[in-house]
């Protein structure tokens, strides 16, 4: 047997550091969620439609050569044309401008209602979950009692007292809409409170404040955001419903709900007056629902695989 010379061998340099090296950049929770959201075609469609509609509602009324209130009895109920892209209504007002104004108001109501919801819900749910015990018990019994109140019906009476308008609608929604959010936040915080990382933080001497704001709230943010994407369309629906039965925005200002309501009464003769606002209105709700579904899949840790 031929002897093998030693110089034919070379020691393998063990690159222990290199082997442990992480090649790809680590993703935090939000980057990870965004990556998953981007893969969801339906949700991205929703997001794009939503951005598009928001931009339209902000800029179109600014650049339109008509305003939402000017009446002109020579041109009532025109079909869509080069001059009036969506036609005109029975006062000769330009529907293109009115529809985008309406979108703006509907979106404003939806987003503001969601913010109010968020503030009340997080505070109520947070206090309830954090203090626990007797406080939690009383607060939860209270929720259980008002949870069954049919808010849409009570809101009708409330708005009759306050007088119709954006702020009464927002107030009516705020008084009644925060319950699901409060329940959600409480449930979320209660579950998180018992988890190991909170115990670890407590063991390391973190203050209650730090635990709440650095650990509990950020960790429930995903679920809260998902809830918000469902609150916005329900507030928009709430406003449109009230406008439809004649308790919404006061004319000449219009929301999508009041335009729909006006259009519904003349559908047999001037279908464009309801078809166009219907399309815009449904697109808003559709995009929020698609985005909400996508966000839930992307943000909800339970859905993670």
């Amino acid at each position: 047997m031929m002897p093998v010379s030693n110089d034919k061998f070379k020691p393998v340099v063990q690159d222990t550091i290199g082997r442990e090296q992480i090649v790809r950049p680590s993703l935090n929770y939000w980057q990870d969620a965004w990556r998953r959201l981007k893969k969801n075609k339906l949700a991205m469609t929703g997001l794009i439609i939503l951005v598009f509609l928001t931009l339209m509602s902000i800029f179109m009324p600014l650049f339109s050569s008509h305003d939402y209130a000017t009446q002109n009895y020579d041109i009532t109920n025109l079909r869509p044309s080069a001059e009036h892209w969506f036609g005109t209504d029975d006062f000769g007002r330009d529907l293109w401008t009115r529809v985008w104004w309406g979108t703006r108001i509907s979106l404003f109501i939806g987003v503001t209602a969601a913010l109010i919801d968020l503030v009340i819900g997080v505070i109520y749910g947070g206090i309830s979950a954090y203090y626990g015990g007797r406080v939690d018990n009383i607060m939860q019994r209270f929720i259980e009692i008002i949870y069954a109140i049919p808010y849409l019906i009570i809101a009708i009476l409330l708005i009759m007292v306050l007088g119709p308008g954006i702020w009464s609608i927002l107030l009516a929604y705020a008084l009644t809409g925060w319950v699901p959010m409060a329940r959600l936040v409480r449930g979320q915080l209660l579950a998180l409170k018992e988890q190991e990382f909170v115990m670890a933080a407590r063991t390391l001497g973190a203050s209650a404040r730090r635990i709440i704001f650095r650990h509990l709230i950020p960790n429930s943010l995903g679920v809260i955001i998902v809830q918000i994407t469902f609150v916005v369309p329900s507030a928009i629906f709430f406003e449109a419903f009230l406008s439809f039965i004649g308790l919404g925005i006061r004319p000449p200002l219009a929301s999508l709900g009041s335009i729909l309501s006006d259009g519904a009464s003349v559908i047999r003769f001037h279908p464009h007056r309801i078809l166009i606002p219907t399309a815009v209105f449904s697109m808003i709700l559709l995009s929020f629902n698609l985005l909400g579904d996508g966000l839930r899949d992307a943000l909800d840790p339970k859905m993670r695989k």
Partner: protein
Amino acid sequence: MLNYTLRRLFYMIVTLWLISTVVFVLMKNLPGDPFGEASQKLTAENRKILMEQYGLDKSLPEQYLIYMKSLLKGDLGVSYQFPAHSVTDKIKQAFPASLELGLWAALIAVSVGLLLGIIASLNHNKTPDHAAMVTAVIGVSIPSFVMGPLLSYFVGVKLGWLPPGLWNGPEHRVLPAIALSFGTLAIMARMMRTSMLDVLNQDYIKTAKAKGLSGYAIVVKHTIRNAILPVITVLGPIFVSLITGTLVVEKIFSVPGLGTQFILSITSNDYTMISGLTLFYSSILVVVIFLTDIAYGFIDPRIRLAKGRK
């Protein structure tokens, strides 16, 4: 179970009391004169007689007690606009049409919704699933007060297949019921699909397959039976949306129901009518939610045990 039922019953009564108190407070704060426009012409004496007749001269706590007493007797007062009718009479006269409409819509929503959900879950991530879910999302996005006019126009006027309004024969029931059911149908379908998928992943379904049960037996006896449980929880909210939906759908299709009456009294500022109908609608909803909660407690012991322990 008895404990749980009594507890829920207690909450229901408190809720009802709270609602009627809120309605009382709101009624006392409504703008305008309780006797309408014509009251400007009343002399001071006439006004005093009227105030006495309606008990408005008494102190607020006294009025509140009288109001509560008459509520307990089922007396909702007399319409200010049509003094010949009591609110209870109006409800008796108009409610049957609303109830019928609501029941038809519930029937459509539950049967079609469940079916769509089942089909979607059995074809998970295939074309029927996507089709059903797109239908469901669209259903959620088009509210009944938009669906109504569209159906009435396209099916009723353009195609002329069905009458676009009114409430005479059975053919008048179809379009309003479909318009009303659309949104709830979508919720049912989504709920059922999620619940079915959940159950299909359970070990006992695998066991059933391993035992060699037929696909039909697995789906009908094991999956649907278990999957339908959580769906019952949304029945309460679904009734809420159906009942509030009747308000607008009735107006669109000129159904002579309670919703039409409600909107009419809103536009004519008929305050007693509005408060009476508000109380009536709220009580129905509160009772329905109570009943679904109890039903769910009966069917799924986990619920009442989990809630009862606290």
